[in-house]
C-alpha cells in the first residue's frame, strides 16, 4: 500500500510538519520539561532562592505527599470533580437533554438559552454574580430565604462551589447529549415502548448502549476541565482555612502567594500525572468500546 497519499515525498512532508512540531516543542514540550526541572529545585519567587535556585532532588515531591494540606486538597478536588462534573453536570445535562429531546418551540429555546448563557459568560463575572448571591451580609439568597447572616460560603464552601460549577458547566453536557440522543433511532425507542419497557429500561437497553462513547468522551472532557478549574477561587479564595482549596487553588497559593515556585512546579507535575491517569483510563474504556463494536459489526448482518 502506498503510504504517501498526498504525493509530497519525505522532504516536503517534513517541511510541512516542522512548523507545527516547533510550536508544540516551544509551547508544550519545553514548558513541561521546564516544570519537571523546576520541581526539583528550591526556586522561589523572591529572596536568595530566586536568584540562585539549588537542586533539592525529590524533596518537593516527598514534602507535598506528606503535606496534609496537599492530601486534603486532593480529596477536595476528587469530591469537587465527582460532585460537580460527573454527577452534577453530566447527570443534569443528560436529564435536560432527555426531557427536551422531543420538544421544539419556545420552551426548548428558552431552557437552552438560559443554560448556554451560564456557559458563555466570563468566569470573573459569573464568580462575582455568585458571590453577590451567596454573600453573608447582603446576599440575594439570604434575602430570598429570609435567612439573614447565613454564611453559605463559610459553612458549606465545598457544596457552594460544587453547585456553582454544576450551574456553570451543564450546558456542555446538555448539548453533547442532545446531539447524541439524535443518534438513537426513534423506531427503537418506539419498539421498546410498545414492548412495555419503562423509561429506566428504555434508557438502559436502548439509549445508553447507543451513546456510550459520547458519555465517555463527555466525562473525560468535563472531568479534566473541572480538575483544572480555577474559577472557585473567585468565590471562596480557597477558604475558609483551606476548606474549598482544590488543587489549582492550592498550587496558586503555594507557588504565587507563598512564592514557593519549586514546590508549586512539583505539585503541578503531580497534577499532570493524575490528569494523565484519568485520561488513560477513559481512553482505554473508549478503545475497548470501539473494539466491541467492531466485533459486533463484523459479525452482524450487512447494513
Amino acid at each position, binding site marked *: 500500500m502506498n503510504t504517501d497519499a498526498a504525493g509530497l515525498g519525505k522532504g516536503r512532508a517534513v517541511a510541512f510538519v516542522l512548523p507545527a512540531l516547533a*510550536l508544540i516543542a516551544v509551547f508544550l514540550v519545553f514548558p513541561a520539561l521546564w516544570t519537571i526541572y523546576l520541581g526539583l529545585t528550591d526556586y*522561589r*519567587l*523572591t*529572596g*536568595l532562592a*530566586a*536568584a540562585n535556585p539549588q537542586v533539592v532532588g525529590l524533596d518537593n515531591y516527598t514534602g507535598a505527599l506528606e503535606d496534609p494540606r496537599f492530601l486534603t486538597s486532593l480529596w477536595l478536588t476528587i469530591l469537587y470533580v465527582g460532585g460537580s462534573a460527573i454527577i452534577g453536570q453530566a447527570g443534569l445535562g443528560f436529564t435536560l437533554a432527555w426531557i427536551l429531546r422531543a420538544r421544539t418551540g419556545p420552551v426548548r429555546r428558552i431552557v437552552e438559552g438560559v443554560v448556554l448563557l451560564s456557559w458563555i459568560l466570563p468566569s470573573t463575572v459569573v464568580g462575582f454574580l455568585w458571590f453577590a448571591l451567596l454573600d*453573608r*451580609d447582603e446576599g440575594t439568597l439570604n434575602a430570598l430565604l429570609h435567612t439573614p447572616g447565613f*454564611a453559605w*460560603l*463559610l459553612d458549606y464552601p465545598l457544596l457552594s462551589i460544587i453547585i456553582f460549577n454544576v450551574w456553570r458547566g451543564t450546558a456542555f453536557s446538555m448539548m*453533547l447529549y442532545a*446531539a447524541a440522543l439524535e443518534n438513537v433511532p426513534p423506531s427503537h425507542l418506539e419498539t421498546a415502548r410498545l414492548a412495555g419497557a419503562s423509561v429506566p429500561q428504555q434508557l438502559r437497553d436502548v439509549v445508553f448502549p447507543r451513546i456510550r462513547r*459520547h458519555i465517555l*468522551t*463527555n466525562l473525560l472532557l468535563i472531568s479534566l476541565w473541572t480538575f483544572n478549574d480555577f474559577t472557585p477561587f473567585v*468565590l*471562596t*479564595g480557597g*477558604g*475558609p*482555612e483551606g476548606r474549598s482549596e482544590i488543587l489549582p487553588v492550592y498550587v496558586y497559593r503555594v507557588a*504565587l*502567594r*507563598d*512564592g514557593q515556585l519549586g514546590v508549586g512546579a512539583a505539585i503541578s507535575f503531580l497534577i499532570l500525572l493524575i490528569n494523565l491517569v484519568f485520561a488513560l483510563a477513559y481512553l482505554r474504556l473508549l478503545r475497548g468500546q470501539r473494539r466491541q463494536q467492531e466485533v459486533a459489526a463484523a459479525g452482524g448482518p450487512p447494513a
Partner: protein
Amino acid sequence: MRFPSRPAVIAATAVLILTSCGTGTDSGSGSITLTIAANSIQGGKNSESATWIKQWVIPEFEKTHQNVKVLFQPSGVDDEQYKTKIALDLKSKAGADVIDVDGIWVGEFAQAGYIKPLTDVGGPAVDQWEGWSQIPQAVQGLGIFDGKKYGLPQGTDGRVLFYNKTLFKKAGLPDTWEPTSWQDIIDAGNKLKTAGVPVPIQINAGTAMGEATTMQGVLPLLAGAGSEIYADGKWTGASQAVKDVLGFYQQIYGGSGLGDPKLQQEAKGRDKSFAQFAQGKIGILAESDYFWRSVVEPNAGVAPMKDRDQVVGYTRIPAKEPGGGIRGQDHVSMSGGAVRVLNPFSKNPKLAWELLAFMHSAAATKSQLAGQVRISSRTDVNSEVLTADPMLKYIADEVLPTTAYRPGLAVYPQVSTALQEATAAVVSGTSADEAASAYQAKLEGLVGGAANIGG
C-alpha cells in the same frame, strides 16, 4: 461531538500567532515614557495617592521635562496580590520604572536581584539628593537592606485601637477611653456586647487577611506581652508570650461572642470589617493610622464616615499588664511603611531617579499631604503639616516613640504566614497551646531548625 476541522484549527493558530506578533515596541517618536506603579486607584484603594500622582506628580514633572511622558499604572487589590504582580513583573525584567512596595519586601526583592541599590540604578545623583538630610535614620531604615539604600520611604505609620464613641456611650463607656491592660479591652468588649453591639471587638486574625493579621493583631499583642518576633538573632517560638497572644485571641473568638470568627475567615473579611465599623456595627478595631486617613476618611475613604471626627476615637494599644510590654512599656505599637524603588531594568534609569526624587521633594510631599495628612518621611514637611490633624499628631507624638519594626529578613513573610495560621487555628476552635506548638513545628521548618528559635 465533533472537534473543529483541522484547517480551521491551523487558521485559528495562524491568526493567533500573527496578531501576537503585532504588539511590539512603539514607533519611537523620540519621546520617553516613564511609568509609576502603585497599589492605589482612584475611587478605590488609597484613592488620594492615585489622585495625587495623576493630578500633581505627572503634570508637574512633565512641565519640566518636555520630552517625557509619565504614565500611572494603578492597582486596587490585596497587598499579597500586588506583591505577586510586582515580583513577576521584575522577574521578567519588565514593569514600571518607579514602583511602590512595602518596606518589608525590600529584603527578599533585593536578594532575588529584582531591585538594586538606588546608586547602582540612578547613578551618583542619588547620593547628592537634598532629601536625605530630612529623613530620620529610623525611617530611612524602611528602604535599607544589608546597609544599602534600595528605596525612598514615603512615611511611616503607627497602630492604635480605634473605637466608636457612639457605641461606647450606649454601653456606658467613657468618651476618652484609655485601656491599660488586655483585660480592659475584654471588659469594654463585654459591656459593648451587653449593650447589643453586634461585633464588640475586631482584632484581625486568620490567613485571609494576610499581613494585616500579623501587623494589626499578632505583633502588637506580642509586643504587649513583652516579646518581639525576632530578637538577638533568634525567632520567637511557642513561648509564653506567643501562648498569651493566642490565648487573647481565644478570649475574643472562642465562643465568647466578643468577636466575629466568620469575619476572619471570609475572603473579603478585612474590607467587610471596615464597612461594618463605618456602619456602627463594630465597637473596637485595631488598625494603623491608614484606617483614619484612607478608610473612614469622610470624603475619599473606602468606607467613609461623614462624622468621623466626632465618632471615631483612638487610643494606644495597651500592654498585657502595665509595664508588661517590650522595653517595659505600658503601651505598644508596630510600624511599617511603604517605599518607592527604582526598577533596575528601567530603560531610562537616570530619568527614573529624577522622577522618584521629584516625588519625594518637599513640594511634592506637601502637595500629597494636602490631599491626605499622614506622617511623611520628611521632617521639614511633618513639622509644618502634622498640626492640621490631631490623630496624626497623636501618632507622631504618643505612638511612634513606643513603636517597633518588623525584621527586614527575607524569611519574615513566611514566619508571618505561620503566625496567621496559628490565629486561624484558634479562631476555628483549636486551643491556644495546640496552635502554639503547631506554629513552633512550622517555624522550625522555615528558619532552619530549633537552634534558630528562642524560648
